[in-house]
C-alpha cells in the first residue's frame, strides 16, 4: 500500500500531531502511524472519524488518483 501523505498534510495544517489525531478518533498513535505509512487499511468508520476531525471529505483524504 502507498503512504497516505494527504492525512499527514491535513494534520499539519491543523497543527496536530499523530498522537492528537489518534486520541481524537479513539485509536492508538501506532495505528495512526500505520495508516499514514500505508501499512494498515482503516475501516470506513475510522476513515469518516478522521475526516470529521480534520474537516475534510473522504475524497480529500482517501481517494487515490
Amino acid at each position, binding site marked *: 500500500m502507498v503512504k497516505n501523505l494527504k492525512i499527514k498534510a491535513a494534520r499539519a495544517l491543523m497543527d496536530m500531531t499523530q498522537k492528537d489525531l489518534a486520541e481524537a478518533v479513539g485509536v492508538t498513535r501506532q*495505528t495512526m502511524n500505520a495508516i499514514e505509512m500505508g501499512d*494498515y487499511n482503516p475501516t470506513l468508520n475510522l476513515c469518516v472519524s478522521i475526516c470529521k*476531525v480534520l474537516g475534510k471529505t473522504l475524497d480529500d483524504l482517501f481517494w487515490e488518483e
Partner: protein
Amino acid sequence: MMTKLDSKNYDERQMIDRYKISFETMLLTFVLIFISGMINIFHGPWAAGNTQMMILLSIPTSYFAVRVVLKRAYFSVRQKSYAVSLILFGATGLLNLGNFVLDLMNGGSIIENGVLSEDLFSFFLALPFILIPAAYFILKQTDKNNAEDD
C-alpha cells in the same frame, strides 16, 4: 465525542491483530496437545501431571502475549501508563522464578524418573509474566534505535 469509535478497549487494528494471533495461538495449542497426547500414548508420560498441564498452558500463553506486545496490541487504547502493569508482571514472574530456583537449590531437579519434574511448574508459571515486560522492553529499545537512525 461523536467521532470516537465505539471500541472500549482496543482500536480496530489492535482487534484485528489480536484475532489473528488468537487463531495462531489456538493452532499452536492444538499442535502441542496433539504432540503431548502422542507422546503419552506411544512413550508414556513426559512430565509430572501438573507440570504437563502448565507447559501446555504456558507456551501458548507466552506466544500470544509476546506476539501482541510486539504488534502493539497488548495494552488498550485507554491505558495511559503501562509501568504499573509491567512492574506487576515482572514481579510476579520473578517471584515464581525465585520459587523455582529455591526448589532447585533445595535438592529439586528438572528431570525426575525420566520425566520433567513438578519443580518446573513454577518456571513455566513465571514464563509469560517475564516475557511480557521483556518483549515490551525490546520493543521500546527497537523504537529508540529506529528514532536515532531517523
